[in-house]
C-alpha cells in the first residue's frame, strides 16, 4: 500500500499547519479551500494588488500571520492545493467538491476537517436592516477590501472579537459610536483568573478596552439590546444599559456577534457523533485532544472542532496531522505530541475563562419578542417557532424546523440555529441541550443547478 491519501478541508491556521506537518513526514496532502488564497478568515490575505503592510492588516498578529503565510508558501509545491473549491458533501471515503461550476470527487484515506467558524448571532428587532453586519463580516470588509461597513458604527454583542473589531475600526479612523457588551463587567472580573492562562491575550483585551475608552468611545457592559432603528436602513440602536436606563444611539451601521460557532456540517454529514458543550452552549463533533473523531479516518481541527481561536487552531492542526501519521503506522515523536497537547490544554483553560467572562446571553435570547424575525432566509419570526413548540407539539429542533421552516433556507440554520435552539428551549421550559441541534443536510453551501459533474458519464 502506498502513502495514504490525506485530504484537508480549509486552509486557515489549522489546515495549513496540518498540511505543513504532513509534508514534513513526506505526505502530499490535498488542501481544499473555499477562498482564493490561504490564511483562513483570521489571516486572510489581501487581494493581489493591495499593498497594506502586515502591521496594518493584522496588528498585534502580524508576526503570526506572516509566519503562517510563509509556512504555506514553503509547502505550496509539495501539496495538491485546490483554492476556490467548496466541499458540498462527504460520503464514504469521498469528498464532493465544486469549483468554477464543475463538480468533482476527492477520494481519501484520511481527512482533516479544518472548516473554521462563523459568527454566532442573536436576533433583535431590526437586525435584518441594511447596515447590520456580523462582527466577522465587518472585519473581513476591513481586512480584505479596506472598507468600513459605515461611517458611524456601533459594535453590539459580546466576546473578545467585539473589542478587537471595534479597536481595528477605531484604529482605521472609523467613527465608532459605542461598544455595547451584553456581558456584565462583574462576569469579566470573575473570569480574569482563568483567562490569565494566556496572560498576553488577557493583557491585549484590557488594552483594546482601555484604548477605545481613551479615544472617548462609550463602552457599556450588561447591555440589553432593544431595537435596531430603521426605517429602510440602520439609523441607530436602542439599548437598555446595565443601570436600567434606555438610550438611543445614532449610527448608520451595526456590527454584532456573540462569539463564534463551529462550521461542523461536514463532520455531521460524515456521521461523527456530536456532544453538547455546556460552557459554550454548543454541539461539537466528539473528538479526543488529537482531533480523532469516532469515525475512522475523520479528524477535526481548529475552530471547526471547538472555538479555541487561531493559536489553538495551529496546534490542533499539527496534532491532527500527527494522528493521521500514527494511523498510517508511522512512529510519531511523542515529545512533540506532548508539548502540543499541553499547549492545547492551556487554550482550553483560557476558553473556559472567556465563556465565563462573556457568556451567551441566554435569558435575553429566550425573551426575544414574538414579532422579531428569527430565520432570515425563510422570514420566520420567533413567534412562529414558539407556535411550532406550543401548538404543534414540536419537542426538538428538527421537528420545529419541519413545522415552522426555521433553518430551512439558504444558510441551513447556520445563522439562526443557535438562537432558534435557545428560543425553542425557552418555549418548552427545558435546557437548550434538550432540544438537540439542526441535523446537517447536504449541500453544505448552496449548490448551483448548473453544476456539471466531471465523473458522471
Amino acid at each position: 500500500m502506498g502513502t495514504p491519501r490525506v485530504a484537508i478541508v480549509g486552509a486557515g491556521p489549522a489546515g495549513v499547519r496540518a498540511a505543513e506537518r504532513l509534508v514534513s513526514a513526506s505526505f502530499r496532502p490535498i488542501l481544499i479551500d473555499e477562498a482564493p488564497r490561504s490564511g483562513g478568515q483570521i489571516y486572510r490575505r489581501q487581494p493581489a494588488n493591495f499593498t497594506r503592510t502586515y502591521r496594518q492588516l493584522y496588528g498585534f498578529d502580524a508576526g503570526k500571520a506572516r509566519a503562517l503565510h510563509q509556512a504555506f508558501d514553503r509547502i505550496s509545491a509539495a501539496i495538491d492545493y485546490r483554492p476556490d473549491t467548496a466541499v458540498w458533501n462527504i460520503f464514504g471515503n469521498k469528498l464532493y467538491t465544486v469549483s468554477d461550476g464543475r463538480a468533482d470527487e476527492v477520494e481519501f484515506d484520511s481527512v482533516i476537517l479544518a472548516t473554521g467558524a462563523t459568527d454566532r448571532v442573536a436576533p433583535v428587532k431590526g437586525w435584518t436592516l441594511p447596515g447590520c453586519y456580523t462582527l466577522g463580516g465587518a472585519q473581513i470588509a476591513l481586512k480584505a477590501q479596506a472598507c468600513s461597513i459605515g461611517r458611524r458604527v456601533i459594535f453590539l454583542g459580546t466576546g473578545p472579537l467585539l473589542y478587537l473589531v471595534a479597536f481595528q475600526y477605531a484604529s482605521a479612523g472609523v467613527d465608532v459610536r459605542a461598544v455595547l457588551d451584553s456581558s456584565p463587567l462583574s462576569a469579566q472580573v470573575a473570569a480574569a483568573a482563568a483567562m490569565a492562562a494566556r496572560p498576553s491575550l488577557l493583557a491585549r483585551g484590557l488594552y483594546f478596552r482601555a484604548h477605545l475608552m481613551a479615544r472617548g468611545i462609550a463602552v457599556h457592559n450588561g447591555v440589553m439590546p432593544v431595537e435596531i432603528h430603521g426605517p429602510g436602513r440602520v439609523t441607530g440602536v436602542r439599548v437598555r444599559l446595565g443601570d436600567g436606563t434606555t438610550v438611543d444611539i445614532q449610527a448608520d451601521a451595526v456590527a454584532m456577534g456573540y462569539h463564534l460557532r463551529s462550521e461542523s456540517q461536514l463532520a455531521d454529514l460524515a456521521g461523527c457523533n456530536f456532544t453538547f458543550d455546556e460552557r459554550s452552549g454548543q454541539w461539537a463533533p466528539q473528538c479526543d485532544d488529537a482531533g480523532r473523531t469516532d469515525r475512522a479516518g475523520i479528524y477535526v481541527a481548529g475552530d471547526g472542532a471547538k472555538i479555541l481561536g487561531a493559536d489553538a487552531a495551529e496546534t490542533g492542526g499539527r496534532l491532527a496531522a500527527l494522528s493521521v501519521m500514527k494511523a498510517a503506522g508511522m512512529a510519531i515523536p511523542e515529545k512533540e505530541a506532548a508539548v502540543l497537547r499541553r499547549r492545547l490544554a492551556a487554550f482550553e483553560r483560557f476558553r473556559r475563562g472567556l465563556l465565563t467572562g462573556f457568556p451567551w446571553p441566554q435569558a435575553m435570547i429566550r425573551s426575544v419578542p414574538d414579532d422579531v424575525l428569527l430565520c432570515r432566509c425563510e422570514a420566520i419570526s420567533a413567534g412562529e417557532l414558539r407556535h411550532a413548540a406550543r401548538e404543534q407539539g414540536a419537542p426538538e429542533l428538527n421537528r420545529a424546523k419541519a413545522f415552522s421552516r426555521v433553518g430551512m433556507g439558504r444558510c441551513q440554520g447556520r445563522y439562526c440555529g443557535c438562537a432558534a435552539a435557545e428560543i425553542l428551549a425557552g418555549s418548552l421550559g427545558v435546557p437548550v441541550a434538550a432540544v438537540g441541534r439542526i441535523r446537517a443536510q447536504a449541500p453544505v453551501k448552496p449548490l448551483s443547478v448548473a453544476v456539471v459533474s466531471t465523473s458522471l458519464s
Partner: protein
Amino acid sequence: VRAADVIVVGGGIMGAATAFFLRRRGRSVILLERGLAGQQASGTNFGAVRRQGRPLHQLPLSHRSHALWMQLAQLVGETCEFTPSGHLAVAYTREKADAFEQYAREARECGLNLEIIRGDAISARFPYLGSGIAAGFLSPDDGHANPRLVAPALVRAAARAGAVIVENAEVYAVEKGGEDFRVCAAQGEFRAPVVVIAAGAWAGAMAAAHGEAVPLDCRGPQMAVTEPLPFRIKPMVGVLTDDAERFIYFRQVARGNLVFGGGIRGPASTDTNRAMVLPENTLRQLRYLRDLLPAATAGNVIRTWSGVEGYLPDSLPVIGPSARISGLFYAFGFCGQGFQLGLGVGDVLAELISVGRTDTPLHPCGIDRFQSSSQRAPDARQLS
C-alpha cells in the same frame, strides 16, 4: 394496561389517517408511534397527490383518497399546503408516449380523465419545458401537499377527536391471546381486539411474527429543493421512463422553491433509522432537471433529504386484513407511492374494521399474495 377498540401501530400517514377515520366512526383508538408522527416515508416523500400513472386496479382507492384530499382543510383544520395544481407526465420517446396513451385511454374508463398533448402542442402549452418531449399527459385535478405537515396534522386532529396518541413508543411485540391483542411497547402494555400494523418499513418484522413474511426491502427517496426561483410553474411534472437514472420529477411550492427527486433509490436502514441521499444521485438529477426545465439552471440547491421507505417486489402495497389472524390488519409497503393513498387507506380500513366490509376494491394488495410461489414480475416504471 391501557385498552381501546383498536390499536394502530405506526404514526405515518396510513396510521394517522386510520386513527382519525376510526374516531369519526366512533371507535376508541390508541396510536403507538416509535418516534414522532410522520418522520419517515410520510414526512420525507415528494408530496405528490397524484392518481395519474397508478395501476388501474388502484384507481378506485386513489379516487376515494382524492375526494378526501379535497376536503382536507375541513377535516383536519389545516390546508397542509395541498394544491390541486395538475400533474403533467412527459415522455421523451414516441414508444413511451404511445404506451402511456394506451394507459390514458384505459384510465378514462376508470374515471381518471387525462388530457393527451402531443407534438408541438406541448411546447405551446408548456413553453418552459426543455426540448425533445414527444408527449405530455395532464391530470388536471392531481396536485401536491407538504408531506412534513400532513401526518402530524392528522395525528393532532385524531387526538382532538379523542384518539390516544403515544409517541416514542416503539412496539416490541404484538400477540393475540384470547379475544384481545396484547401490544408491548416502550411505554408499556396496551390491549385491543383489533390491531392495525401501519409501520412502514418496520412492518415487515411484525408481519413475519404472525407467520406472514413478505419480501420487504428498505430504500430511501432522493429528494432536493432549490431556493425560491423567480418564476411560477403550476403543474407538477414527471418524466415517463424505464431508465431509473433518467427519472426526474419536480413541483414548485408557493414560496417559489423547486422540490425535485428521482433516480436510483438510496440505501436505508430500519436499524439506524437513516436513509441516505447519494451525492452522485443529486448530481445526476441536476443534469436531467436542466433538460426538463432549463430555467432551473439559474437556481441553487439548498437541501437534500431522504427517509426510510418500504418496498415490495411487485411495487404494490399490502392493504387489508391478515390472512391468518382475525382482528389483524395491515397497511404498509407503499413503495414510495403511498402519500396520495394515505387518506383513502385510513378511511377504508376504518370502514373495514367498523362494518366488516368495503366497496373499494383492495385486490391485489392482500398479504397472502406472498404465500404463493409465483410472485408477480416487478411493475414497469412508476411515477412519483
